[in-house]
């Protein structure tokens, strides 16, 4: 790690003084200044596109807009600093409005919306020559003149600040959240993340980076032109981020510097410029998705390989340690009081009554199992309880609170959910996957407490030896258990477990039974969907049998097993 830090520090110093060393032909202070401003503006695109994965295809609009706004305001006689502030604020406000409109919809709307905005900015700038200077651009004047070296100092300092703030932002909780959102929005919502709000914030912050880089560049060059905010500029910006390495701290810097330098040293590149950008972009997307930074990292790993983590994974065997004494469910809800109330809930998809007038309660300290043939409405019911679907009729109460109008992420703290096919993040470690739920619980924990809590949880699940491995290094067999560990951390009142025992061996099922009994003894209310009837009979306090969207039996396991109607409808098909 120290070797790496040293290398980074040395690289930074060399990079800063490089334009004056005359080693690299064509890399002059002037070019370095322009590249630095450009790279600063690309940090915004890197945040929104590289880190978050939003398809912001018109980001140049937010690079040019503040310059235009500032210039226009200055034209009305506003002082320089006020004009800059207004220009930036206006541009950020517009970004915020755009996000409010497009972020809620599928990504294609955001892609077309941002692209369309670049068309608008370029078109309007051309269409209103009296205000914007038309095709030749708007001349911007600063009340001072800086020397070439002073501009370079400003650019280097601004870029350093930009990189530092980005690195500070894109780590820990934020980075975990972003990876989760990017990989699986639904899982992110269930964990408690307000995805729409988050993406709106990210786009707004990103526009600030774009704007600061853009406005500095505009005053440095002295003019802002329509094509600076247009589609071509946006595509070139994307190309530089992608080529450098989307999501990486130094990605945009590397991409910008390389591309700008290549064009500076190659004469007559004008005609080929767009094609080279395009080919570079396409080839990197297709064959080196991590960009140059990733390529360099791979080379570095060959030079200084990390110690190989050994993956030993006989889980769920041997003695199971005690679960941690999690601060149990608040005392007002003693064991035996109702946690989840489902009152005459119905869900119709057109003419299909997926769930029809279903009522039942799940109490604290109780395990209730839902069984029934495929298509009985069990999964729909789970989706209704977690807020993914809205009921057509009826009410769902959680701790006596009506859940109507409570969105998925707002239920995250109270409900821990696992999925039929686990929805974990492959490029996070196991411990980070667990911590990503702690990140979004209402009571604040610092990073160290979160990690300690998550490690204790993994120890309780006998998963400690996997804690620091990336999820994609671990066999799919363990994912189910890791997801259960994530769902049950942070003492949710209700656990919704979708086929927790599927794919487990008999021995593993035994351990799962112990785990669930411990979770129950902590006072959790647990609702399980499961096809393994033997497992259900061992663990459940009550069994609910569904068929065709209706409850056809609800009783203690022994009674259900001997119920003739239930046997005919469901068990008969199995036994």
């Amino acid at each position, binding site marked *: 790690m120290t070797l790496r830090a040293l290398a980074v520090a040395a690289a930074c110093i060399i990079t800063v003084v490089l334009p004056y060393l005359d080693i690299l032909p064509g890399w002059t202070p002037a070019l370095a200044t322009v590249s630095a401003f450009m790279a600063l503006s690309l940090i915004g695109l890197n945040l929104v596109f590289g880190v978050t994965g939003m398809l912001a295809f018109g980001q140049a609009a937010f690079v040019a807009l503040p310059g235009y706004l500032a210039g226009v305001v200055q034209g009305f006689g506003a002082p320089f600093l006020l004009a800059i502030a207004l220009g930036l604020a206006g541009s950020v406000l517009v970004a915020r409005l755009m996000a409010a409109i497009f972020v809620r919809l599928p990504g294609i709307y955001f892609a077309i*919306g941002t692209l369309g905005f670049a068309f608008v900015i370029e*078109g309007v700038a051309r*269409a209103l020559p009296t205000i914007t200077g038309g095709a030749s651009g708007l001349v911007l004047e600063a009340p001072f003149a800086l020397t070439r070296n002073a501009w370079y100092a400003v650019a280097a300092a601004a870029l350093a600040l930009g990189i530092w703030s980005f690195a500070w932002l894109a780590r820990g909780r934020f980075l975990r959240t972003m990876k989760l959102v990017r990989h699986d929005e639904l899982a992110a919502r269930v964990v408690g993340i307000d995805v729409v709000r988050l993406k709106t914030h990210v786009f707004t912050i990103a526009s600030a980076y774009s704007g600061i880089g853009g406005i500095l560049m505009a005053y440095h060059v002295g003019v802002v032109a329509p094509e600076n905010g247009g589609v071509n500029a946006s595509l070139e910006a994307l190309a530089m981020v992608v080529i450098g390495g989307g999501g990486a701290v130094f990605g945009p810097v590397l991409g910008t510097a390389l591309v700008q330098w290549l064009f500076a040293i190659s004469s007559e590149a004008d005609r080929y410029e*767009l094609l080279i950008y*395009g080919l570079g972009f396409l080839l990197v*997307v297709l064959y080196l998705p991590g960009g140059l930074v990733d390529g360099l990292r791979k080379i570095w790993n060959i030079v200084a390989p990390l110690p190989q983590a050994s993956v030993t994974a006989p889980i769920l065997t041997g003695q199971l340690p005690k679960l941690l004494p999690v601060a149990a469910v608040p005392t007002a809800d003693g064991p035996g009081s109702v946690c989840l109330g489902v009152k005459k809930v119905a869900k119709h998809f057109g003419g299909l009554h997926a769930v029809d007038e279903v009522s039942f309660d799940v109490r604290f300290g109780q395990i209730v199992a839902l069984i029934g043939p495929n298509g009985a409405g069990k999964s729909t019911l789970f*989706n209704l309880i977690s807020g993914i679907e809205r009921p057509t009729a009826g009410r769902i109460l959680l701790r006596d609170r009506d859940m109507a109008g409570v969105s998925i992420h707002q239920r995250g703290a109270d409900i821990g959910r696992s999925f039929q096919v686990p929805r974990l993040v492959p490029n996070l470690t196991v411990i980070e996957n667990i911590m990503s739920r702690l990140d979004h619980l209402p009571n604040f924990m610092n990073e160290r407490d979160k990690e300690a809590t998550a490690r204790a949880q993994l120890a309780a699940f006998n998963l400690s030896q996997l804690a620091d491995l990336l999820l994609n290094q671990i066999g799919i067999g363990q994912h189910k258990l890791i997801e259960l560990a994530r769902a049950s951390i942070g003492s949710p009142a209700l656990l919704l477990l979708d086929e927790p025992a599927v794919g487990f061996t008999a021995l593993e099922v035994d351990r799962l039974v112990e785990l669930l009994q411990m979770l129950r003894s902590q006072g959790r209310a647990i609702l399980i969907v499961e096809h393994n009837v033997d497992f259900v009979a061992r663990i459940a306090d009550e069994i609910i049998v569904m068929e065709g969207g209706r409850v056809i039996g609800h009783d203690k396991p022994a009674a259900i097993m001997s119920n003739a109607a239930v046997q005919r409808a469901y068990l008969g098909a199995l036994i």
Partner: protein
Amino acid sequence: MNLFTQAIFSGLMTGAVYALLGVGLVLVYRTARVLNLAHGEAFAMSGIFMALLLAWSVPFYLAIVIAVGASVLLAMGLHRFILRPRGNWPPGTLILITLGAAFVARGVMILLVGTDPVSFPAIFDGDPIRFAGGAITLQGIVLVVFGFSAAAAIGIFLTRTQTGKQMLATAENPYAAELVGVDVERSRLIAYGIGGLYSALAGILLIPLIAVDFQSGLSMTMRGFIAAAISGMSPTGVLLSGFGLGLFESMIGAYLGALVQDPVMFAILILVALWQSRNVRFGGGVRA
């Protein structure tokens, strides 16, 4: 000269183009689940190829065949050789690849003909036909009639032919379609083929009346998408929304000036987005 009638005529022509572009975009989006941002490049490419081939004194009708054929092959090749092998990649990355393809297409077009707009003669000559105070060329009439009938023919193709029904099945549920023996990949390839063909033909018919440059592709993709989004991504509804969009844009251009067309298009996109947001389940975004 009556401004209103003239705006109707030019609106019908652009509307025909938007309907043709929208149909292809919807077919590809529904069957292959990819928003093809390189869709409009077939429109621009066909025009650029035409201008280039005519400059090389290739016979007119042969040039049309080559230009259209090349555009269709490029669209199908994009799917067959670049997107299909990466079918399991996330949708966002696939969109990014189509954007990269559009990007490369723009670069190639600059290389071929430069940045200035190019054009070529119309297929159908003759004096403009005057009617109700407006004038429309024969080519314009052919474009409108072709656009309307070709976009409408898709509805018949999808419901009456075996191949069409297989495409509908692919759009509805590719896994289920595959299980009952539908060749899903063939359906998708045909969708790209039809998309490329319609875009290229729209280009051949419209470009002599306007002009084309390397920038036209993405702008056309965006308009095709807006038409498609208004119809709710319906392969039959996009006929109406395409013509509606063309007429509206033409009216705006006639009465407010051509330069406000981009902002107005964007405003329509915002309205569509707000309208669609209504349908998004509460909490927003993805579906389970």
